[in-house]
């Protein structure tokens, strides 16, 4: 059988067209553009944030129940941290400043992953440099490890001697006024994203 070049060309063109039209149907079939309402990662459904009781820098124990009615920003770190913790705390301080009066409805809790060096006094001094309202929390290594486990937080000692470092989870947990763990903001977001999400959580 002889192949007709014209027919072949027509068939090729028809095939290309049908492929392109198929792609139209694939990419435009439904435009239900649903994006999450928060800048942070959202838990669905949200569950109650795991409770803990640790030594606080405000001369009392730190529990989440104490801050019901406020949005709690919970983060883990250590005062000798060179980059991640100072950046996170400065970002959270700026976010609180950007909230105006609503800042009174926000509580930052910073749980140490380095109880060996982070005494209550050391944490109080460290946090005051960022925002005097921030609360530090420490405890026995076992108590802190239990809290980290509940939140899926990792903390690994790196190096030895006095200048060791701690590789740790750098995300910030967002807990709503009812005590539910609603979201998790990865490290690197700017204060505006926190302001956006805190306002949303205060309203919802």
């Amino acid at each position, binding site marked *: 059988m002889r192949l007709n070049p*014209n027919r072949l*060309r*027509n068939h090729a*063109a*028809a095939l*290309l*067209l049908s*492929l*392109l*039209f*198929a*792609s*139209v149907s*694939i*990419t*435009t*079939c*439904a*435009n*239900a*553009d*649903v*994006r*999450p309402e*928060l*800048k*942070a*990662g*959202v*838990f*669905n*459904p949200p*569950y109650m944030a795991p409770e803990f009781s640790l030594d606080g820098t405000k001369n009392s124990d730190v529990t989440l129940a104490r801050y019901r009615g406020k949005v709690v920003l919970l983060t883990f770190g250590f005062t000798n941290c060179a980059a991640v913790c100072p950046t996170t705390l400065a970002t959270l301080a700026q976010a609180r400043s950007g909230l105006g009066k609503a800042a009174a409805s926000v509580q930052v809790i910073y749980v140490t992953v380095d109880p060996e060096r982070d005494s209550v006094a050391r944490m109080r001094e460290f946090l005051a440099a960022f925002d005097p309202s921030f609360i530090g929390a420490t405890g026995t290594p076992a108590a802190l490890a239990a809290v980290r486990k509940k*939140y*899926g937080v*990792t903390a690994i000692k790196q190096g030895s001697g006095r200048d060791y470092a701690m*590789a740790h*989870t750098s*995300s910030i947990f967002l807990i709503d006024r009812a005590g539910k763990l609603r979201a*998790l903001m*990865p490290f*690197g977001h700017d204060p505006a994203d926190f302001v956006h999400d805190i306002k949303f959580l205060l309203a919802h």
Partner: protein
Amino acid sequence: MRPHLLKLLMRVAGREWRRLTAIALSLLALGGIGWAALAPIQVSSHDELFEIPHGTWARRMAGEKIEILPHTIHLTLGLNDVLLLRNKDEVPHIFGPTLIMPGQSFSLPFAQASTYSFQCTAHANGQLNVIVEPTPAPGWERLHWRWRKLSNAVWHSPESHHH
């Protein structure tokens, strides 16, 4: 003489018809390619879903090695830029950047093209990388994206994308 002339006319008309058809198809094809290169891309969902199947923990306890998340996930801004992690197992799992309870999902949006690294104990090297590419620009990038999408739709079942 008359039948001969009619035959000739029909042959000429047939040739012209084929030529016109070829031209029309070529124009349509060009239009399609132009559309594919220039039209904004719209998607039905921004989610890139990864699920921990029911029974994963039990299988791991039985000694089976199960990799749920790849070491590197590729996302594209404006298209599939929400990482959706879902735990369908009966126990909590560290999944990507966080701990996810049974029956719970975690939806993480990305707003900037960059490479993100998360600590992830589910991986042997303890790290998950998410590479977020910029939205395909009009022209070759969009055409290429549509072609890749079409190829995937034709050659792969939806399950093959979701581990």
